[in-house]
């Protein structure tokens, strides 16, 4: 299918397309076909892929085409919640120049834990909501079936309205427009130690987190960043979550986890994933939390209230 034909079918917003491949060769073949179609239509291609994938694309002739831009994803870190605002910024920057925009976005999969994988899947689901009013653009999401669990792959397929197979683009049979189905949170460690907090207790919350963090070797700027994040979440409980909440902290596999629970409900699925502007009165706290933490898990329902887990990797001492 030619790029022109597909472009003609596109409405405003995102065309969100899954590309399941197996191995480097198939990745290259699919990605190059997508890029060639884009360049034939004089579109810009933004590429955000793991470093090894980037290297093989850069080695191809299209890798030096000025219309193919490799995005620096290292600055985004591991938290998938930072991807949508990054794509938003890139697309607005480049779509504003009058050219069509395409993206290739692959998230590094190896070494990810269950919590991170669930958040990547949520990110894929949110993409369909996040760009409904954006300029038209087309995102290809390559997934290596050799590294992704088949059941997880099935779930990810349900989040992609379009699919690319053998160089052809079509609507996906697997896509389901449905509410996001969360997995249960992993069991907490040391669940008996709960710290209740309310108005005026933000300093006490920080003391509690500091005690746990320092005991496991987290200090300096990373600790200060963590303390800003925990302050924001606890303050949200006090302001929006019924005036109080509970905190638990633990360390598992080299990661500090701070869990907050309160009676409030976060009903905006995009909470904390929109870049705030100084003019807006609110919306900064969760944004900052997503920017500062390596992973943020949020579960919120009217029945059970809101649980927020902040994950901060404790780096080994250098």
């Amino acid at each position, binding site marked *: 299918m030619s790029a022109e034909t597909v472009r003609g079918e596109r409405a405003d917003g995102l065309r969100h397309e899954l590309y399941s491949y197996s191995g480097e060769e198939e990745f290259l073949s699919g990605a190059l076909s997508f890029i060639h179609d884009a360049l034939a239509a004089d579109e810009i291609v933004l590429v955000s892929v793991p470093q090894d994938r980037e290297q093989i694309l850069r080695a191809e002739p299209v890798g030096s085409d000025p219309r193919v831009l490799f995005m620096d994803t290292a600055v985004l870190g591991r938290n998938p919640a930072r991807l949508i605002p990054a794509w938003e910024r890139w697309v607005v920057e480049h779509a504003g120049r009058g050219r069509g925009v395409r993206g290739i976005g692959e998230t590094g999969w190896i070494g990810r834990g269950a919590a991170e994988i669930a958040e990547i899947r949520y990110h894929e689901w949110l993409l369909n909501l996040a760009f409904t009013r954006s300029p038209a653009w087309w995102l290809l999401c390559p997934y290596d079936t050799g590294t992704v669990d088949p059941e997880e792959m099935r779930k990810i397929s349900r989040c992609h309205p379009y699919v690319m197979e053998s160089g052809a683009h079509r609507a996906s049979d697997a896509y389901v427009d449905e509410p996001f189905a969360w997995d249960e949170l992993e069991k907490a460690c040391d669940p008996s130690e709960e710290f209740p907090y309310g*108005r*005026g*207790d*933000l*300093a*006490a919350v*920080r003391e509690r987190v500091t005690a746990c963090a320092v005991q496991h070797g987290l200090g300096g*700027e990373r600790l*200060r*960043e963590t*303390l*800003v994040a925990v*302050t*924001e979440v606890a*303050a949200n409980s*006090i*302001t929006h979550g019924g005036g109080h909440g509970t905190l638990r902290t633990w360390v598992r596999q080299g990661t500090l986890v701070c869990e907050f629970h309160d009676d409030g409900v976060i009903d905006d699925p995009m909470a904390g994933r929109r*870049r*705030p*502007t*100084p003019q807006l009165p609110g919306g*900064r*706290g969760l*944004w*900052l939390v997503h*920017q*500062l933490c390596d992973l943020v898990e949020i579960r919120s329902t009217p029945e059970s209230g809101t649980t927020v887990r902040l994950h901060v990797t404790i780096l080994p001492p250098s």
Partner: protein
Amino acid sequence: MPTLDPVEIGEHVCWIVDPALGHQGYKAVTSTFLADGELFGDKVVIVGSLLDTSAFTGGTRGAVVVDPRSAGADAAAGIGSMLGLVRREADRAGRQGYRALRVLAVMDELVPPGVDVDELLAHELRLDEFVADREAIVVCAYGGDRFGAALGHVACVHHLELESEPRRSAPSFRMYNSGPGVWSVCGAVDADGAEVFRAALVTAAALAPTLRLRFDELELMDAAGMRALVEAATHSRVRRITVEGANATVRLCWEMLGYGTYDVPVELAR
């Protein structure tokens, strides 16, 4: 029971007096304050009649005792007149050869019930400027049961807070004068203290044409604190606030929130 022993020249202290101790609470601490004045060669001024100074060991030791009620002044004048009084006494103390001026102000008597918190804040900030500028110690004694939430506001604009039991709800920052138009902020400015911080900045902005903040001792500032800083700069007379000495985390959060990119009237200098 707290002690005023660690108080040094150049410090402006908020002493929150435990209401359970009544006058005994004042008496015990004040005795040592007077004795230290004599020991170090300071001129002591006590503003307030609550203190039965004759009961102190060694009497008043030459302290000047001023009863704000005897002057018949109204409430606002009571606060305002205190600043004039300490300035005059500081001048005299210098001429009389004292090392410094040592002031204990019983704020329960100076401040009428229901006083405007911003007015009280302005008074304390002016006192702080005075202390930073002169060889002086000023201790403001507040009855812990009289001022409610206002106590949190005023305690933040002293170098030091003395009390029997730490208050859980107290804001986690302090702001004090460190030169003409320069204010140092230390601790943590978070959602619990953001409103107090905004009020303190707006009040400080009314005292000088420019406002510089030193953040060298500020550990962290959350989104609410940064919003308060921007709002204070936007809605105060100075129209622009310069921040110096902020740590890497404060600068990082400032950029993450977009304040470094958007046109806001706050400059975060390196």
